[in-house]
């Protein structure tokens, strides 16, 4: 078993502001790794750097043995990702979204069609695959995104708050499947979440990041022991404090507001 993700001394500065401040960690192959932290702690910035869409200020990242800035193609082929925000094309059907992904990742046609059928069935969307994504509910979109992320059989799965806004049924369904993948196929899973019970239940290891620094890293059990807390949530608060974090609305949030106003309904 090798190390699937190796992060060394990673830094991301935005001007004066340091979003990620010299963090290092490793994730062994086949493990489920929870990346926890309050709003604005640097979780999403870290995931963006791990997934090659944001250049680090300094430090190094190796994904599946490849350098994330020099061997981007190999790195990108190694992982699948479910983003925090939806990233489907609403004007295409589920099948078309899947197909487009498969073509971008160079999955041969016969295998692509077979895998698409199997995966949409797996997330319970088999009978809706010919429907436009714009007719999907939030939970259905999320399930489709999980299916899509797995289409090219990645070795690593990144999940940025994958279960936000989902009902307990869907959440359990998705986690059940991801745990099975990890166990049976040795897929490495890196996820962020605000639900501490969820992290406690599924993660082999967690890291807690706050103000751009990793403040703790161990198994959920050890973390509770060390902080003498009964739940991971209490341990999390013991580590990161009670202060509520402010996050500035970014361009995306403003845009979504505008989009909502224009469509007169909002995203379902």
């Amino acid at each position, binding site marked *: 078993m090798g190390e699937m993700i190796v992060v060394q001394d990673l830094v991301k500065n935005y001007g004066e502001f340091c979003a990620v401040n010299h963090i290092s960690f490793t994730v062994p192959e086949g493990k489920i790794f929870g990346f926890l932290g309050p709003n604005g702690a640097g979780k999403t910035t870290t995931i*963006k750097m791990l*997934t*090659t*869409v*944001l*250049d680090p200020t300094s430090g190094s990242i190796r994904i599946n043995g490849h350098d994330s800035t020099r061997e*981007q*193609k*190999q790195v*990108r*082929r190694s*992982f699948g*990702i479910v*983003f925090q*925000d*939806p*990233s*489907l*094309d*609403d*004007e*295409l059907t589920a099948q*078309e979204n899947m*197909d*487009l*992904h498969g*073509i*971008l*990742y*160079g999955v041969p046609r016969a295998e692509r069609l077979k895998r698409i059928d199997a995966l949409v069935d797996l997330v319970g969307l088999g009978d809706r695959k010919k429907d436009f994504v714009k007719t999907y509910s939030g939970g259905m979109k999320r399930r489709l995104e999980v299916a899509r992320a797995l289409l090219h059989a990645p070795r690593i799965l990144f999940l940025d708050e994958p279960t936000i806004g989902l009902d307990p049924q869907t959440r359990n369904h998705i986690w059940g499947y991801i745990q099975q993948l990890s166990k049976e196929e040795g897929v490495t899973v890196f996820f962020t979440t605000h639900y501490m019970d969820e992290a406690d239940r599924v993660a082999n290891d967690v890291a807690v990041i706050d103000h751009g620094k990793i403040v703790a890293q161990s198994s959920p059990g050890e973390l509770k022991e060390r902080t003498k807390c009964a739940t991971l949530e209490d341990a999390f608060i013991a580590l990161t404090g009670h202060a509520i974090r402010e996050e500035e609305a970014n*361009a*995306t949030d*403003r*845009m*979504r507001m*505008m*989009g909502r106003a224009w469509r007169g309904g909002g995203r379902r």
Partner: protein
Amino acid sequence: MKAIYILCVRQLKRYIRSPARIIGSLGQPILFLVALGFGFKAMFARAGGGNYINFLAPGIISMAILFNAVFSGIEIIWDRQFGFLKETLVAPVSRLEIVFGRMLGGALVAMAQGIVVFAICLIAGFRVKSSPILPLAIVFMFLIALLFAGIGTVFGSMLQDMQGFPLIINFLIMPLFFFSGAIFSADGLPKALQFGLRLNPLSYGVDGLRGACTGIFAYGLKTDLAAVTILTAILLGIGSYFFSRIQL
């Protein structure tokens, strides 16, 4: 190559599936064609200019292409805000393939729109002259479409949200259209304006399209073709460069 193809197909599908957009973007060219075309027709003929609709139609077709092509580039902003851009940026294909797929798809959509406007112009009385260079009309339409898909891509890659969109339309696209010889010829204009027209890439596109359709060139076929081809290549290069620098 397959990535270019599928991203291109995606844009064509989105176009065909949105009749509201197709009809909506026909409004402006039809308005200009009817208002200017019929409004100035008599005056133009009295001044010895001949058939104004024949002069104007290539300009209106170019306009339809210009707006649709720029908009296809600006769509990057929508894809960024509504997420789809991320899906393409984490895929194991080069940014160059992605941006070429997008620009080509956008250009084909703009050209489709241009062909619809062409047909409307024919109904309104536009008469093309059948000649060996008539097929070049399609070439010019395609080059105009690619050129402005490139310009749209530059802005789509630079801007974070749609706030800057009216700025681009009013201070770049509208002036490019008005000062391209689309609605009036460069003859008799003040020297400074004539020079401005010369610097406008659309001028050569409009002139080439007009020449291919009617046989009358202001700058000459070779100049038009060379200018538009070179400028298109440059803009595709600049568009690709800006797109490849996108960070999320």
